[in-house]
């Protein structure tokens, strides 16, 4: 079912398919949408018979709902979409957060708003990923920049969604999803499964205390579990009018992610301590990386995970820097969060290179912007 370890030349979306299979995905529900469709097509091929279930549903609300349902049946479950479908999924994403359902959502971002640029890349859904559903909640989101990371970070999505019982997002874009490149499938993978109620285990998932992440009651095992999106107690008793139950629950749902930021966050740092630092993520970071690897005076912090916000590496990059450039394919979304952390860490000049239209910033655009900031 999974491809043998080795080297392959594949498309980003195909690498995501392989990562999902390597993680043990058993259920996928999708609805066709560019530029994510290859993921659904790939899993339609592979999830057959005892390998798992592929389902094409009537819309994206149905997809995410079925994926949550499948997760309660004990399956590792995933869906993949892009902007318009992602917007449709928002209510159910909040449900997954509130009901603490491990699910993986791939959003291969395209240009919005609305139907926008179906075949072109953007990073316009970064804030939607964090804030798209109503209420206070936390998610985990990774931003791949290469074909390899489409594989590796899909695996991380499954691992962290299982470990913390939260919706986890692979926030890719049309550029990375359709990019072709080298995929190295390792011999051994670290795969984390949810800690199930009633089963004693001693592996990694147990390093999170039970009062922060409760053991997961799989249906059909006599737990008589009540799973609901309404304000509820630990035993699933709905208490929508009890302010303490609500406050305790919502705080815990947020804390279990925020307190474990260091465990979750992933990044790459080049030229740490440079006076000029670039902070970027996903395909926007590719041009910046070329600049930083060639110019000894320019450093780069490339965020591989963006939610929860990796405050520690941002502060670390900012501490010795005179100026920071943030590169994004939007009008400034992560920029404002980065700016807050960087300025708190003592870097006063934080600027944005914002690129719209569907292509990531080129190395010469990055250099040009750095020049205007007084660097290089």
């Amino acid at each position, binding site marked *: 079912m999974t491809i043998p370890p080795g080297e392959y030349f594949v498309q980003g979306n195909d690498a995501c398919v392989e990562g999902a299979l390597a993680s043990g995905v*058993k*259920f996928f*529900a999708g609805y066709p949408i560019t530029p994510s469709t290859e993921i659904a097509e790939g899993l339609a091929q592979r999830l*057959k*018979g*005892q390998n798992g*279930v592929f*389902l094409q*549903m*009537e*819309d994206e*609300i*149905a*997809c995410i*709902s*079925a*994926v*949550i*349902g*499948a*997760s*309660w*049946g*004990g*399956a590792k*479950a995933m869906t993949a979409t892009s902007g318009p479908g992602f917007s449709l999924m928002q*209510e*159910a994403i909040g*449900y997954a957060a509130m009901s603490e359902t491990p699910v993986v959502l791939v959003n291969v971002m395209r240009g919005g708003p609305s139907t926008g640029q179906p075949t072109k890349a953007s990073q316009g859904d970064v804030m939607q990923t964090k804030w798209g559903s109503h209420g206070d909640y936390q998610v985990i989101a990774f931003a791949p920049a290469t074909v390899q990371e489409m594989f590796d970070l899909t695996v991380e999505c499954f691992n962290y969604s299982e470990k913390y019982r939260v919706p986890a997002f692979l926030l890719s874009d049309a550029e990375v999803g359709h990019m072709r490149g080298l995929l190295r499938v390792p011999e051994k993978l670290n795969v984390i499964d949810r800690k199930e109620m009633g089963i004693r285990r001693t592996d990694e998932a147990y390093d999170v205390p039970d009062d922060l992440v409760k053991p997961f*009651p799989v*249906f*059909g095992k*006599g*737990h*008589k*579990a*009540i*799973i*609901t*999106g*309404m304000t509820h107690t630990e035993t*699933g*008793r*709905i208490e929508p009018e009890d302010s303490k139950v609500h406050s305790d629950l919502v705080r815990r749902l947020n804390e279990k992610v925020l307190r474990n930021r260091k465990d979750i966050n992933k990044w790459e740092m080049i030229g740490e301590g440079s006076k000029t630092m670039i902070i970027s993520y996903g395909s926007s970071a590719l041009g910046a990386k070329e600049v930083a690897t060639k110019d000894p005076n320019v450093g780069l912090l490339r965020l591989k995970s963006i939610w929860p916000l990796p405050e520690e590496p941002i502060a670390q990059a900012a501490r010795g820097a005179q100026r920071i450039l943030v590169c994004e394919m939007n009008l400034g979304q992560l920029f404002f969060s980065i700016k807050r952390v960087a300025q708190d860490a003592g870097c006063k000049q934080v600027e944005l290179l914002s690129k719209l239209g569907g292509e990531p910033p080129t190395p010469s655009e990055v250099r040009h912007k750095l020049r205007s900031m007084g660097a290089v």
Partner: protein
Amino acid sequence: MDIFEFYRKDRWPHVFCPGCGNGTVMNCFFRAFNEAGLSLDNTVFVGGIGCSSRVPLYINSDALHTTHGRAIAFATGLKLAKPGLKVVVFTGDGDLGAIGGNHFINGCRRNVDMTVICINNNIYGMTGGQASITTPHDFQSTTTPYGNKEYPFDLAEIAVAAGANYVARWTTRQVHELTKSMKSALQKRGFALVEVVSQCPTNFGRRNKMADPSQMLEWFKSNTVRRDKAKSAELDHVDLNLAGQITVGEFVDRNRECYEELIGVEKHG
């Protein structure tokens, strides 16, 4: 099994108003479930949002209380991920036919094995009496203060047309027939719908000159026309006008292969 064993008694008092039909529906359902010889431990009850969708929370088994309108989509994923489970959905007319209409027709078409009990009270009960897609023409609701100018959906007929394996409709007045149909639905492989036309005296009856639950049951009784699935029925509808009729009966009972069989998943559950 004693009927009271089905209830999560620690969840009482419940949210249903005096005179609500949900109690009758639950009572009939538990008897049917008992007679069908099913086990609560192996059954998951799925609900959307609404008074009717709250029923799963009072049953002594696993419950998945979901979002408004999406219960069938959640149930589809659950059933396919764990085909050994019995999956039962409790839903309302608004949940199933309005916001969830797309999942409803596609659920019938896809024919995944599940039993769907739709408590059709012809109104949005939980939100306080707004018109629903089954509110009869010219009836009153808080959002149709001049009478409902739209015409209602026939949920059972939609399910027949969309491909469900089993479809029946009764009112809360025909408890024996209702129980029997619920049992048939529970024993059917594939998508099975039992629509129960039920009374909401608080939010429907009160605004339509039937504030007393018994008046509503009287209304059901005098307007019910039975259609047997065996007889070829003349064109009927469930336009619940005061002058109209509520067609009840078993409308379809067939054995299209269910989706799990078609994809071979039930072998691996």
